[in-house]
């Protein structure tokens, strides 16, 4: 065993008075050795970021280390002077952040930002610095290093920006790298690429890595050792395989259990159920024509055909920018479709004037992603729940509405006392329950759920998904469930549609699409999902490179061909038609044409 790069002993950090507990963290001890990746796992509020910031000497003034030590290569950080900390940062320890757009300076070229680190910490001449910058940019596998160093952050994609951050953090070969949820803001295929890069560089330079995450899938991919943090205390620590195979603390078990296992592939489809909503050639193009000038058209959705059956769930999966939210908003008519039909019980609602949509709105409701933004902060819960009833169920009395509100609150698992309170008095999970109750209030047949759990902690996520599944069983509601989380789809969906750059590339029963995916993109997406497997299987599996292209100028032919490992000449020239590889399983790919 080599000497630890980072040794944290009995660390306690006090919270200012008025917080929900006296200490942000207390009694925390762990070590990171040379060439080792230690994952610090916890949900929001567990104190994991506080530990990272304390290690970097970046704690906000309101928080103070009250006990214990943090030693970087034997040197005490807690009592180090501000100058000493400045000298250590970047040179001996560095940090990468969750959001690479805000962590980079938007008005500085990427090369200059890396150069700043070198100028501050080394006496190198400009030419030597330039060579070193190009070296490190090449090392993080950015294409065309000369162009990348001359670009501004906004000219790069999210994954490329995170690579620049990593280059900046590693250019001085620090002994310790702290990664604070570096892949949370990225799509799953990009996340897999970044995780692979961190592992590769860490092995090459022998860097000790403290990797902060909430996702046991990521842990399984990258960690050597795991420390689980809950409400400021370490509840479990040990080698990865041991923690994954034999978790001792129930909290650890719960976190591991909330990661998609990818084994039971969806729920069986009841083909006899009536189709309540179908789209035919649905399309939405943004900014097609301006009055004074032609604007670049963004084809957010094109030729989307899908069917939702009564009482069942259709999951739409795709990375950000794939157009899945646009489809959802077209269906509930928050945006007007540019073309195609939306057939609700056989009646086309795509082009109905807004004032005639009442009957449709009674049948189709929506639940949004962010429960903090989707409830009006100035309305009491009772008024929030009554809004739809007042607008759509004319004729009901206030007494009936009040009884219905009580019933709704009970249905979503909230106390009746909730109705006189305001949204800010509730936690994220409770707010999402209120939003679900609001949608239920008008007794819809279909609820469009647009990433309803992605703003929530994993443990709360599980509860909301269970609530949705329970409501479906009880009330026979159909869901259009939109997500980038394949695990949720596998748990909830009867049927699945996979979207890529505005088009559905594959659709069919969940067990077929997830179990034997036909489209190369579906295959890549499934492979990129970090699953809890002690070996870290997904990183080794087939992987696609690159990121989602811009929908303003999608690649000619099949939009996926630049990233597709099996692309042929046909893929470059024509967009494939939808072909049925089974009566209920359709795919858009020349391989199956």
């Amino acid at each position, binding site marked *: 065993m080599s000497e630890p790069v980072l040794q944290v002993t009995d660390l306690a950090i006090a919270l200012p008075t*008025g917080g929900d507990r006296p200490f942000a963290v207390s009694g925390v001890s762990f070590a990171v050795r040379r060439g080792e990746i230690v994952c610090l796992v916890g949900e929001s509020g567990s104190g994991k970021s506080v530990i990272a910031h304390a290690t970097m000497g970046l704690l906000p003034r309101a928080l103070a280390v009250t006990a214990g030590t943090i030693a970087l290569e034997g040197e005490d950080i807690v009592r180090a002077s501000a100058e000493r900390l400045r000298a250590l940062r970047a040179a001996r320890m560095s940090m990468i952040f969750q959001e690479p757009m805000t962590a980079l300076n938007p008005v500085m070229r990427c090369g200059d930002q890396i150069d700043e680190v070198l100028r501050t910490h080394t006496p190198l001449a400009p030419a030597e610095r330039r060579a070193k910058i190009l070296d490190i940019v090449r090392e993080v596998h950015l294409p065309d290093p000369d162009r990348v160093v001359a670009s501004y952050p906004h000219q790069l994609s999210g994954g490329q920006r995170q690579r620049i951050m990593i280059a900046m953090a590693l250019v001085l070969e620090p002994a310790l790298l702290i990664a604070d949820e570096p892949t949370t803001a990225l799509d799953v295929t990009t996340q897999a690429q970044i995780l692979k890069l961190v592992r590769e560089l860490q092995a090459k330079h022998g860097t000790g890595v403290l990797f902060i995450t909430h996702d046991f899938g990521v842990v399984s991919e990258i960690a050597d050792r795991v420390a689980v943090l809950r409400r400021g205390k370490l509840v479990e620590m040990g080698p990865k395989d041991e923690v994954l195979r034999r978790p001792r603390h129930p909290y650890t078990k719960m976190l591991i259990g909330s990661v998609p296992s990818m084994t039971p592939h969806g729920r069986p489809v009841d083909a006899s159920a009536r189709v309540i909503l179908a789209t035919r050639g649905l399309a939405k193009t943004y900014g097609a024509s301006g009055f004074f000038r032609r604007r670049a058209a963004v084809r957010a959705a094109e030729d989307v055909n899908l069917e939702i059956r009564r009482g069942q769930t259709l999951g739409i999966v795709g990375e950000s920018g794939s157009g899945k939210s646009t489809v959802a908003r077209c269906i509930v008519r*928050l945006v007007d479709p540019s073309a195609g039909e939306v057939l609700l019980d056989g009646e086309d609602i795509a082009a109905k004037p807004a004032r005639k949509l009442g009957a449709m709105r009674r049948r*189709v409701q929506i639940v949004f992603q962010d429960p903090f933004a989707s*409830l009006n902060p100035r309305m009491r819960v009772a008024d929030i729940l009554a809004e739809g009833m007042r*607008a759509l169920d004319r004729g009901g009395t206030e007494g009936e509405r009040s009884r219905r509100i009580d019933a709704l609150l009970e249905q979503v698992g909230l106390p009746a006392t909730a109705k006189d309170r305001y949204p800010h*008095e509730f936690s994220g*999970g409770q707010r999402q329950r209120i939003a679900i109750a609001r949608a239920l209030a008008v007794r819809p047949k279909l609820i469009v759920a647009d990433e309803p759990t992605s703003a929530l902690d994993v443990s709360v996520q599980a509860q909301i998904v269970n609530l949705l599944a329970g409501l479906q069983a009880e009330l026979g509601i159909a869901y259009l469930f939109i997500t980038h989380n394949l695990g949720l789809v596998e748990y909830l969906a009867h049927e699945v549609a996979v979207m890529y750059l505005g088009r559905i590339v594959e659709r069919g029963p969940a067990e077929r699409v997830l179990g034997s995916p036909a489209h190369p993109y579906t295959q890549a997406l499934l492979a990129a999902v970090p699953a809890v497997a002690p070996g870290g299987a997904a990183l080794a599996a087939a992987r696609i490179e690159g990121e989602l292209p811009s929908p303003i100028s999608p690649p000619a032919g099949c939009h996926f061909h630049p990233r597709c490992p099996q692309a042929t000449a046909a893929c470059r020239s024509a967009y494939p038609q939808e072909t049925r590889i089974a009566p209920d399983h359709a795919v858009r790919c020349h391989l199956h044409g």
Partner: protein
Amino acid sequence: MQDDPDLEREAVRESLLESEAAEAGAPPPREPVWARVRRSWTVRAGGTVLAILVAIALAAPVLGTVDPSYFDPGIRDLLPGTASEFTDIEGNTATRTFWMGTDSFGRDIYSRVLYGTRVSLVVGVAVAVVALALGIVAGLAAGYIRWLDGPLMRLMDGVMAIPGILIAIALVALWKASLLTVVVAIAIPEIPRVTRLVRSLVLSIREEPYVEAAVSLGTPTAKIMFGHILPNTVAPLVVQGTYIAASAIVIEAILSFLGVGLPTDIPTWGNIMAEGRVQFNDYPHNVFFPGIFLALTVLAVNILGDGLRDTLDPRMAKRL
């Protein structure tokens, strides 16, 4: 697995329940907004000074004043603190101490300054109300009725391009000088700014998911505008209102000083200063006392506005 699976499941379930309970306690109880506002020392300081000024304006007749426009040629140009015989409008003669002196017509500056408080405060409040009311209507229209946005905002740009004082002078010249004219004249150049503020708030709030939720619940447009959007613009508008009031008070004084504001027989701080200007070297008190009141009022309103901004609209406070 060597453990009893049932026991294990039970443990996981317990942990789940516990974690929800922990989450339930997550948001710390927030103080009501008005409690925070009342605690802010800037709001208190500005509010106290303003309250005193309002009291002075209301109680001007009983604070030992005389008719502010009555002049007695026998007591012209008295220095502050001078006691002299004074004959009032009914012909009663008494000895009176002129704490702020008299002007070149023999009018009591103290009475004129106190009555001038009325004009200034009325103008400040009236301009803020008129500008906010018209600006809210225009801003809601521009933000919600898309085809109206372009024409309306270009019109506002046009109004903004003309210097405010120039509009005021033109309007006062066009109509007769009266309180209403002055209020309208000062309010018009303020409208575009309120409109822009309301429009930008509407544009950002109408994209909020809670507004989209209301749309999908079938809530009528008018109800969305006045029930969801307008209440969420109140805080920044209250803050903006205080700044408009402060600037209106100054502009009214400037107009009076330039002689294009209220008629000279109405005592306003600007009028008093304008008349005192010619003799400023010999009798600076003519300008000094109304000047002090003007500065104090504007300062109080601005401090109140800053306090309200910091407590009601913390994001805006950070931006500035």
